[in-house]
């Protein structure tokens, strides 16, 4: 087999692995194929994810299942109004051993490969900000020391819709750090029946999940994603969509260049998921909503008219 053949085989193998991951996830998660796909896209893109839904739709379950299937160390942070930043990052504690007394860093739950920040909008802005550095720089600073996080690192935050009581909207800067915002919807009746069937027949439902990829394999997949070739006109198309958000009257503010970057990367990851080795316009179109919806804000007039962000984003796709 020649080198060219091996390149194609590597791609086929990558596609096969992704298909296996999806299959394993479906052993636990019923339906929600699009959400699963977009979550995997965020993982392949090395991006952080914001999941928004009403309670009880399986956000935590989804994250936990994915971490098991892709062999990542999982930790969970339950955000509450009294949660402190050090509860997330970790803190220095005094360690007394024999005659010696010294400060020792006690790692917080952020030190994992896949961190689920549950109900992030219940934490105070100060605590939410503690996640900023971890999300963007993949490191945390405690006191005057900086600690690197393990690679790969993903933060999947869940939030309840903002209308719910006792929530603190995420600051714009933090929202921008999330690659995508996914909105989970209620399952179809048939899917819900299956969910009920699956989770009511055993005391503790534990699907026999297989770890499909290892950490190095996942990093390799992320490298493949970045390598995905994209045509100049498709890249320009992605940039033009993001740029257009800055000039729409119905929006208070548009998306940042980080949105353009994320849109192209997400397009690449989607192409890999679809088994293609180039980015198509359709990849970009499919990823526009999850990439942009948390990065734009409706103007007062638009809100008054009852418009929503997804409608405006749809108008940008041409």
């Amino acid at each position: 087999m020649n080198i060219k053949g091996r390149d194609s085989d590597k791609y086929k193998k990558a596609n096969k692995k992704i298909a296996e991951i999806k299959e394993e996830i479906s052993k636990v998660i019923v339906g929600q194929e699009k959400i699963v796909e977009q979550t995997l896209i965020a993982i392949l893109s090395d991006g952080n994810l914001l999941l928004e839904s009403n309670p009880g739709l399986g956000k935590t379950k989804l994250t936990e299942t994915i971490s098991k299937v892709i062999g990542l160390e999982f930790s969970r942070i339950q955000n509450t109004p009294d949660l402190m930043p050090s509860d997330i990052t970790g803190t220095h504690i005094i360690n007394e051993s024999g005659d010696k007394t010294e400060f020792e860093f006690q790692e917080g739950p952020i030190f994992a490969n896949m961190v689920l920040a549950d109900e992030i909008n219940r934490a105070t802005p100060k605590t939410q900000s503690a996640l900023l550095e971890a999300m963007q720089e993949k490191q945390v600073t405690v006191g005057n020391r900086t600690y690197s996080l393990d690679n790969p690192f993903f933060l999947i935050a869940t939030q309840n819709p903002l209308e719910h009581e006792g929530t603190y909207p995420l600051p714009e800067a933090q929202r921008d750090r999330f690659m995508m915002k996914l909105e989970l919807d209620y399952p179809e009746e048939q899917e819900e029946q299956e969910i009920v069937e699956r989770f009511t027949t055993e005391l503790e439902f534990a699907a026999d999940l297989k770890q499909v990829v290892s950490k190095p394999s996942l990093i390799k997949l992320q490298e493949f994603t970045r390598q995905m070739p994209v045509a100049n006109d498709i890249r320009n198309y992605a940039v033009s969509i993001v740029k257009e958000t800055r000039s729409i009257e119905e929006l208070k503010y548009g998306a940042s260049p980080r949105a353009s970057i994320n849109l192209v990367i997400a397009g690449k990851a989607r192409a890999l998921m679809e088994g293609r080795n180039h980015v198509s316009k359709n990849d970009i179109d499919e990823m526009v909503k999850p990439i942009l919806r948390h990065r734009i804000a409706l103007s007062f007039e638009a809100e008054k008219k009852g418009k929503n962000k997804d409608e405006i984003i749809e108008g940008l796709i041409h």
Partner: protein
Amino acid sequence: MRIEQLIKTLKREFYKVNFLQSTLDSVILFLILNTLQIFVQLPLPTALADYKVIAAFSGIFLLLNFFYRSRNYNIEIYENENPELNELLRTAKDNVDKNNTASRALFNEIKEISRNVSSESIIPNNQILGKTLLIGVLSIGVVMTGTIDTELNSETLETLWDEPDEETTENTSEFDYELLDGEEILGDHNELNPEDMDINYDTSPQEDTAQTAPFASQQEVDSLQQFEEDPSFELSKEYLQRIRED
């Protein structure tokens, strides 16, 4: 195969198809001009009536036609004709300098697809078929003209088909054939005395008689010699000779 080579190959395929089209057009032009020259007697100058000149004219037409057809080469031509190549070729073209696993896999895929599409996709099959059929018909026409005396020129045609001139008419009117029976030719058999007859014969062929009528009697030969002096007879003889030769 590097993508530059692939793009070059596709470009070459494009030129090949256009060259094929131009060649067919030129052959059609050549055959049409040739056929017209034979049948319609185009009022061309003598030099232009030569098939070499027609061939040269067709050659020039081929080149001009080829350059005209090939003036707007664009990789999107393949994309338009092959939806499965849509975006692939442009992506490959824009990433021609990349040399990683993903790019190589893309180039391989294009190579695989282009094996199937290549020039076939941009060949207008109906046009090619139509032109080929036309060439076939014209070729048959040209072959058929080969069975006709191509040396028939206007002068000969006039001689054959025009009204006979006055002199010829007169001679023909005087040319009466009279049927004679054997006795009138050979004499009364009762008066024939075999003892007085001295018959000499020679088995070697006589030049004159062999050419005109090898087994004719001397009297017949003599009567034919009378006809030979007639101009109509000359024309008839020549005509019969030609038919015999053909």
